[in-house]
């Protein structure tokens, strides 16, 4: 039978350590840097909310905008109904009557990017917030985000995310994931290497005017836009101490479909901006973040395949042994146990666990999130396997050129 070469395992550990220590080094560097005074702000802002069958959550989003700690007279809201089949239009009209500063439009269904672009064309403030209609904001998010635009290289600012509901297992796992990615995004933002603008992002209108609106063909328009901003040598800022709260898939089926789209979209964007990979002109993003992100996706797929293979192989071996009369015995020797601990792969695995726990406590405290240790353990044991599965699924769809359905 084919045996997984040991060097594959060491290569995986090596990449894992390089990523972890890269970000820990960035973290230390950032901590040692002087905090910049970003100054006061007085920007006019337009919120663009694309809505497709979002009648249930739309009012919450509007309420959260209306409750922001920012001068309300500086805020305009544009809701774009993307041909909803539920009562989104009715809710929209009701909200426009109830609150000031809301304009709404209805268009034929054409996808989220087309709806956002429709709104962007009609916005005339210097800053535009693109906000999913199922996303609500913490009160201080604008006061934390807008000062970043005083830096003239900043084309967009985004923030950490948190799931709206956390009752189900899959929602809690996404909470752990969002918290971890929030930490990495914060550090990427600090070194000018953040390449995405998810569910809540603020943009300079000037950027859209110069470089175009969202790509309507992309399945991950936020990643495409992030890469586009970076490709034009502009920065994306990240707010880590305030949060956008969004609805996340609450069933495994919905989750896999979402991640399949994300994975496919990510690979398509990689293809579109492949010239940025290993390009020194894009600094750490080109030389490390983009390559490692892609390698990470390949590794996740490989781990999934090898893991499944290993489980099957060991099960066959185990059954074969049982069939010839072997019975497991519970022999324990402290000597043998100590020797097995001395194995390099066991030690590296141990270091990985310690590193993972250190990151857990560090991230939890830095982002001030209440992720539970129990959930983190489940995240490592179960959720990462599901993520690996979606990685390999996306890779397969991409390689055969089959576009996932929404």
């Amino acid at each position, binding site marked *: 039978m084919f045996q997984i070469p040991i060097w594959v395992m060491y290569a995986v550990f090596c990449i894992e350590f390089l990523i972890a220590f890269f970000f820990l080094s960035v973290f230390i560097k950032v901590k040692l840097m002087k905090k910049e005074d970003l100054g006061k702000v007085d920007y006019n802002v337009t919120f663009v909310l694309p809505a497709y069958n979002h009648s249930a959550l739309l009012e919450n989003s509007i309420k959260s905008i209306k409750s922001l700690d920012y001068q309300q007279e500086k805020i305009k809201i544009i809701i774009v109904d993307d041909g909803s089949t539920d009562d989104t239009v009715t809710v929209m009209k009701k909200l426009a009557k109830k609150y000031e500063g809301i304009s709404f439009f209805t268009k034929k269904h054409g996808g989220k990017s087309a709806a956002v672009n429709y709104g962007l064309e009609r916005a005339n403030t210097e800053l535009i917030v693109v906000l999913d209609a199922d996303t609500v904001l913490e009160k201080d998010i604008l006061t934390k985000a807008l000062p970043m635009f005083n830096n003239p290289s900043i084309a967009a600012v985004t923030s950490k995310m948190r799931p709206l509901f956390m009752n189900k297992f899959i929602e809690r796992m996404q909470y752990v994931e969002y918290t971890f990615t929030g930490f990495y995004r914060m550090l990427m933002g600090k070194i000018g290497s953040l390449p995405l603008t998810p569910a809540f992002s603020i943009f300079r209108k000037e950027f859209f005017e110069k470089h175009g609106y969202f790509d309507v063909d992309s399945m991950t328009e936020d990643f495409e836009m992030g890469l586009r901003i970076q490709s034009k040598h502009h920065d994306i800022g990240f707010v880590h101490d305030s949060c956008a709260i969004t609805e996340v898939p609450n069933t495994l089926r919905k989750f896999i479909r979402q991640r399949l789209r994300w994975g496919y979209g990510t690979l398509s964007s990689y293809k579109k901006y492949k010239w940025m990979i290993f390009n020194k002109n894009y600094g750490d993003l080109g030389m490390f973040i983009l390559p490692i992100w892609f390698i990470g996706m390949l590794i996740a797929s490989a781990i999934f395949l090898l893991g499944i293979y290993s489980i099957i192989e060991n099960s066959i071996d185990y059954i074969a042994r049982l069939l010839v009369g072997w019975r497991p015995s519970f022999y324990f020797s402290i000597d043998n146990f100590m*020797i097995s601990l001395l194995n390099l792969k066991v030690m590296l695995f141990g270091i990985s666990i310690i590193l993972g726990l250190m990151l857990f406590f560090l991230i939890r405290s830095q982002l001030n999130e209440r992720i539970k240790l129990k959930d983190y353990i489940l995240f490592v044991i179960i959720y990462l396997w599901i993520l690996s599965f979606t990685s390999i699924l996306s890779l397969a769809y991409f390689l055969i050129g089959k576009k996932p359905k929404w």
Partner: protein
Amino acid sequence: MVKKMIQKEKLVEVKRKLNYEVYIAAILITIFFFVAGLAIGDYFAYQRVDDIGVYQKAISAFLTLSELKGELQANQSADYCNLSWDDVWKEKVEIGRLLTALELKLGKEDPAILEQKRIYNEVQFRTYKLVEKINENCDKKWDIILFFYTNKKSNTGGDYGLSELQGYVLDTVYERDKEGVKIFSFDINLLDKSTSELANSYNITTAPAMVINSKAYLKFMNENEIQRIFEK
């Protein structure tokens, strides 16, 4: 302090640079963990190999003493029967297990491991001879198994997969009757003069093969087949 107010400034491009110090730190820490892991693991593993050397010397000394007694008092079988034997046997089994674990850690081709296995083969052969004598002279009725296996995955000298499986079966056979079964395992690729002669006397040239109570079986056998031979 008057806070600055910078607004409506044109979007400017930024020149990217690499954070070399971050890469150097990440690479150095990663290398440190790999090297430290290897060094610590090897240091303690080789210490255990040295310990095995000491244990084997002790067993060798015991065997030499027993053999000497046997030669001096060839007709006084009682001496064999009164040997304080259990601890030595347990130690031999433990050494076998330790060697298997260390083989996994240091590799089957590690010179220190090969040297200890060579000594272990010798110890086993001498123990086997002693056990045979005790069985004959002391009415012990132990079931004695000589197990020849191969450790080479290239299937040199036999089938690696079947050898491994046979090893598992013999583990169970031993666990079922620790007092009544004596098993001696020999790597067919590491036979010395005495163990070679032993293998040749039963025409064993491939692995897995077993000699159960002085009769050779040149094939893989499951637990039931072995038990049936014991019952005979």
